[in-house]
């Protein structure tokens, strides 16, 4: 379903019509985003490999640039889009690859593992394996050779709902929460159910209460 369709389904499940602007589209987007992100994490908990169904590819047409940080010498690529973090080394970057398939292979690394490898490990001598560590804004590479660096990389990322365009297809895991039995719509409407009506009466008082002295 398209991003705009998903929001429309949620809006149409709410009381119609919203005459006091109780539910703003941007607010709906963020609630949907939170719920989908939780569901992606549920998918990850069942099997991290299943996240492959929900990735968005970057660098397939034009390679993502690999840069070198002058002060540290770290080779890195700025994340092409914000990602949803997961509790494993790959986080929201489920796969990194050379643009041409198979030139070298990438494996997610923990930063501490990186430190160990650099510190005289035999693994340090392997030239065709590249480690990558994901942080909030970029992907850092360990043991990337100059050829791969020059050619750039591509990535498969799991991104938040708000980063899709309105007409982009967004895949929502079609399963109920194994603990509560709640579906996507149940979870979204549960959050929206606590939103109170807008109090537009300019009377220096809480909604439903009498005017108080200043």
């Amino acid at each position, binding site marked *: 379903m398209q991003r705009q369709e998903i929001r429309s389904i949620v809006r149409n499940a709410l009381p119609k019509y919203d005459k006091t*602007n109780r539910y*703003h*589209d*941007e*607010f709906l987007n*963020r609630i949907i985003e939170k719920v989908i992100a939780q569901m992606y994490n549920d998918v990850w908990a069942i099997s991290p490999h299943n996240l492959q169904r929900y990735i968005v590819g970057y660098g397939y047409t034009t390679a993502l640039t690999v840069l070198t940080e002058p002060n540290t010498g770290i080779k890195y690529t700025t994340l092409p889009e914000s990602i949803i973090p997961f509790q494993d080394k790959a986080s929201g970057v489920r796969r990194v690859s050379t643009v041409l398939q198979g030139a070298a292979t990438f494996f997610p690394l923990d930063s501490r593992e990186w430190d160990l490898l650099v510190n005289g490990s035999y693994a340090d001598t392997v030239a065709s394996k590249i480690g990558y560590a994901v942080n909030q804004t970029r992907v850092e590479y360990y043991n990337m050779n100059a050829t791969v660096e020059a050619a750039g990389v591509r990535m498969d990322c799991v991104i938040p709902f708000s980063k899709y365009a309105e007409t982009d297809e967004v895949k929502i895991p079609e399963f109920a929460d194994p603990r509560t039995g709640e579906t996507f719509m149940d979870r979204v409407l549960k959050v929206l159910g606590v939103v109170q009506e*807008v109090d*537009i*009466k*300019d009377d220096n008082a809480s909604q439903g209460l009498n005017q108080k002295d200043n």
Partner: protein
Amino acid sequence: MILCSQIYDTLVSIVRKDKRGLSLSIDDFNYTVVQVNQRIYRLNYSNFEASKLSMDEMDSFKVIGEAINLDVNGKGTLPSKYFHLVGDPYYNHATQGRRKVDLITSLEHGNRQMDYLTQATVLYPTAYMGAATTGEDMSIHVTPTTCTPIYIDYLRQVDTPFLDYYTNDSTFEITYMATGATVAVPLGSTSRSGLSGAVNVTSLTKNFEWHEHDIPQIINIFLGILGIQLEGQDLVQISSSYESVIEKE
């Protein structure tokens, strides 16, 4: 549309109680009709678009898709006959098409402008009402100011009926003037405004904008008011007892 003269003639025939004179002059009628007309408008407005049935009555006063151009401060002046906004204003975004403009209060505007998600943007603009400059009625203030023009549906005010006429100086016979016409007042007659014939005058006659089925209600409200003016208690009582019946019909 209902002819003003039709209502006047009907009223005169109902309220005339003796043959000594005119119990309701046209000038009395013109003074009273303002109140009657506004009362009917208010009665219908209170039930505006409450159902399919009530749409027909007031929707002839609904102006659709009026373009309001905004100045550099995001202020647009509402039409001179503006009465009430219907639905939500909108504007056309260059790439995203029609975008709703949230009509909000000043309280909400102040709060939303400080809120990250719900502050006004070109995709989710807001507007609130305010006074216009001198001589104008009301204005709408849109944020962001670049969302111009906006388009509104609104209820316009109802035109006040008026019955213009001239009188024969000898026979005192009254001749009604047609609406919007230039009327040749003949020699020996005097226009309502006091011009003696032969002279051409512009008729100020304006007919009722209501529908034929509103005649009982118009007459009834008139009778209630005229009963007080004429000290005819029976007219007041009849009007009062008919009012609830007519509104149910």
